[in-house]
């Protein structure tokens, strides 16, 4: 599903070059549930942006579902994001002036799906998230957990192969966090590949595999899962 080969990302800060990611090799199989952990500044956000096709690596190759996306143009990357990737963010990132339903319809507007089908699919996704009675609410009228579920509905509505979640529970309380993570687990069971970026062990433990990043490099070893006491 995801195959990163020698991914390096360098930023130029003034005259200095800062290497945020150093020669990352990483593979995620289809249907896997992976957590990326690491302290702040470890480069996990940058890695997440590259996996999400929001950013391009300075060096290295990135194959998403067999396609080399590291050399794609902006337009093509937008298409990939639209059709193959579902994003879930810490701050939900819903458009405040659109209802839950309209927010969920948004990715389908960009993929050119007709009005009727859009509505049906958005309603279905919201029902699946248990928000059948909140479809016409504006985000401000929803609780944090509900907002995040709208965001998840939006992420899955275009039936992506990969869901990328960046600190999805960072703004939620423990109980709500648990229910959100259970939703991810359920989606994973249905076959969607999930990559979660987090610094919370409670979140990471839902993953089958944990990748530890430190100073732009993957810390070798496969035992983090056990190390979390599971």
């Amino acid at each position: 599903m995801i195959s990163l080969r020698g991914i390096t990302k360098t930023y130029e800060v003034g005259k200095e070059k800062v290497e945020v990611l150093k020669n990352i090799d990483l593979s995620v199989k289809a249907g896997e549930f992976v957590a990326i952990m690491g302290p702040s500044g470890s480069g996990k956000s940058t890695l997440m942006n590259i996996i999400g096709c929001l950013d391009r690596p300075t060096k290295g190759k990135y194959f998403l579902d067999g396609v080399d996306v590291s050399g794609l143009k902006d337009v093509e990357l937008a298409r990939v994001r639209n059709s193959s990737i579902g994003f879930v963010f810490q701050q939900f990132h819903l458009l405040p002036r659109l209802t839950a339903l309209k927010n969920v319809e948004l990715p389908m507007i960009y993929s050119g799906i007709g009005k009727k089908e859009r509505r049906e699919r958005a309603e279905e996704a919201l029902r699946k998230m248990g928000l059948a009675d909140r479809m016409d609410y504006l985000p401000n009228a929803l609780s944090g957990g509900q907002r995040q579920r709208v965001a998840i509905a939006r992420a899955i509505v275009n039936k992506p192969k990969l869901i990328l979640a960046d600190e999805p529970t960072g703004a939620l309380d423990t109980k709500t966090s648990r229910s959100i993570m259970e939703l991810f687990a359920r989606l994973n069971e249905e076959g969607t590949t999930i990559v979660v970026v987090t610094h919370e062990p409670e979140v990471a433990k839902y993953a089958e595999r944990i990748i530890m990043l430190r100073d732009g490099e993957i810390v070798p070893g496969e035992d983090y899962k056990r190390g979390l006491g599971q």
Partner: protein
Amino acid sequence: MRLIENIKMALSSLFAHKLRSFLTMLGIVIGVGAVIIVVAIGQGGEAALKSKIVGSGNTIEVFYSPSEEELRANPNIIYQPAFTEEDIRILESIPEIKSVVASSSTYGSVSYQGRETDSTIFGINESFLEIYDMKIASGKSFSAGDFISGNRVCLISQSLKDELFENEDPIGKVVRIGTQPVQIVGVLEKPSGIFALGTKDIYVPFQTWKMITGKSDITQITLQAASPDVIQIAGEKAAYQLNAFHNTEDSYQVLNYESLAEVIGQITRIMTVTIGSIAGVSLFVGGIGVMNIMLVSVTERTREIGIRMALGATRMQILTQFLIEAVILTLIGGIVGIFFGWGVAEIFALILGWPSLISWQVILIGILFSMAIGIIFGLLPANKASKLDPIESLRYE
């Protein structure tokens, strides 16, 4: 993505900032409105001016302006009468000329029961009233006999009536031109339109005028051509025959009002374009207002742009979204401006008494122009929005 989605999106985001959208639009409303008002009033004024000049139509003015040689030979020539009754007979014999309007005027005092005022005294022939489209407000007009026998009757203008009679009925009363008594048979309608100066005039039949003033010269001749097609020929023939009769080179000249109207039309058009361009400056300023507000909007909505990009919006789609928003803003402003300008132009037309000319072309140009303003001034902000980095934008607070 479909256009209709974009338009809906644009409307909802404009609606979300009602006051801001309204104020931004106001710039365009005033700009488009001002241009429409200027064009409408300009075109209406031109039409009014032309119809006034052309009058009841097909008229040609005859002038006598002695050449330098003639003046050198006889310096007193300018004090001599311009036309004679002989000239009228010559002109009347030209087949292309339907009627010859001759008049003379002098300035003198008119009095009634001790009240006295200065007035222009016109001696006119029968076709005068018809050609100059003068109507009788009260009383009656001259009879054919009045012209033939030089009866001591007169018509007075509304202003003269007001001056001498105030609220009294002047019909049948006798006024004195100098010392000569004449009886008022009618009062003329107050002239309307832009040349309505409301002068104090008194009209008497030409024969009467000769008796009263003791002069026999004709100061003004206007010809009426048989049809609009022969105006040119009639004018040329008239000038030729008069010059031949008086043995002069080019002293008798004609002025065809159609061509004069054309020249005046050109002048008013130049004025309309000039003033319209000045009004156009306000449209330009309105456009800059749109650009300004759109730039603010892009900055404010940086996060939204990031979200849309993450969800798969291409840069082109973001650009289109903002461009359409700007175009909708100016289009609505433009349409409101057109109606605003239309209304004001109608009010002006009503007050000034000339037609307001809002053609569909003006409306179409107004609409297209306001859309163009939206595109031109929306391009920079829209381009800025589309060039945003999605990662930075998502992080934007």
